[in-house]
């Protein structure tokens, strides 16, 4: 399963195809459509109500907490990938190690839930 950097060359091609496709369509359609810009049209759309102030305001901290928790648990998921591939060679001892790892993480999740970090009042 050894791989050299050249094996990942298709990622570059795929990237250029994707970026080229999106870029060309956006560039082409930029010239096709009409361009009649009026002051009213360029206002932010808020269902016909006069918009007040800036939209980039502070938002609920819960979203931030979710993102932080995601980072923690996503790292855990990444750790699981190499284990999953080499799982049969590692055998029972590997499984017990993994049980410990997952058990600690579950304890962490239970702590997060019990401490109310995920409660929206």
């Amino acid at each position: 399963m050894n791989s050299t950097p050249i094996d990942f060359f298709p990622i570059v091609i795929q990237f250029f195809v994707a970026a080229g496709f999106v870029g060309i369509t956006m560039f082409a359609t930029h010239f096709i459509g009409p361009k009649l810009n009026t002051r009213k049209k360029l206002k932010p759309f808020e269902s016909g109500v006069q918009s007040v102030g800036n939209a980039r305001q502070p938002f609920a901290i819960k979203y931030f907490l979710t993102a932080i928790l995601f980072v923690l648990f996503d790292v855990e998921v990444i750790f699981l990938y190499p284990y999953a591939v080499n799982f049969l060679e590692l055998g029972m001892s590997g499984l017990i190690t993994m049980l410990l790892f997952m058990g600690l993480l579950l304890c962490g999740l239970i702590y997060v839930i019990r401490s109310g970090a995920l409660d929206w009042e």
Partner: protein
Amino acid sequence: MILSIYNFTLLTDKIHSFLSAHMSEEFVLTTELVLIGLLIVTFVAVLAMVLIYTERKVAAYMQLREGPNRVGIYGTGQVVADVLKLVLKEGITPNGADKLMFNLAPYIVLSTCIMALAPIAFGNGLVLWDLNIGVLYITSITSLGVIGILIAGWSSNNKYSMLGAMRSGAQIVSYELSAGLCIISIVVLAGSMQMSEIVNSQADGWWIFKGHLPVIVAFIIFIIAATAELNRAPFDLAEAESELTAGFHTEYSGMKFAMFFLAEYINMFVLCAMAATLFLGGWMPFHIGHWTTFNNVMDYIPSPLWFLGKTFFIIFIIMWFRWTFPRLRVDQLLDLEWKYLLPISMINLLMIALMNILGWHF
């Protein structure tokens, strides 16, 4: 066992040798790259049109109405007409928007999901790039899309967009965890992250049949997580028409809007193709034990048809959800993930590991 009488490696080899006979080596490479690029672009465009048509027809029949039926035969021309209309529309960049970010967002969202198409095995030997870390590549690339959504919401300078982007970000990010764990449970069973090897490991039966209850649980969790990652009903509160008009793409119009629309459908295809490959055997035909005649008849159906059939079946289920369940609230949505799906999928993964190490599956 013959797994499919149509082996596409023969076809690709033939094209390669045909080209090599007529041109120099560098030119062959270039031609093949151009061909592949054209294939991807055509596939993406056709796929999005088919999916939009399917979506509208499914929605219509679930509500006892006809759906698009005027343009073309059975309304098939409707999608082409819509695309033409979107191309001819004006793309507005609102005054308050951050110009660079506003135009960059649809770019990121669409190009990431086109990139995720690369390692999907469409048929026997019919794969763009059989990468040895296939599923990891798909999960990592699709999760980049959320950055585009957040950029779109922030740069629009619109309260609805901002709220929609925040909700969508939290939702995609959370459900990615349990989707990832369900993917890992199949990697444990198949022992590889390569798409072709995962498909080959299901030659004697799809994982959903030979994996007992834990794999069925993983499949259900994966479908729920995929629906949530796609921001589709019942988890569509990122776009919730009645409260946020259109969520993060409220301010987008013309082709920029079409990019988000296209990305949504390509993403749906990618995730459903993942589900079909991991749990329903990819392009493997349906076999029953020792019914040799039945199995041989099944082998005559070409492998891409099997793959697309399974994928569209899962897509149909996801469309069905939309007209069956009411929309959740944001706290209910995050509760469902963090308090139920995540612990269940963690324990489920351990169950699958134990099952595999004791050799309990067929």
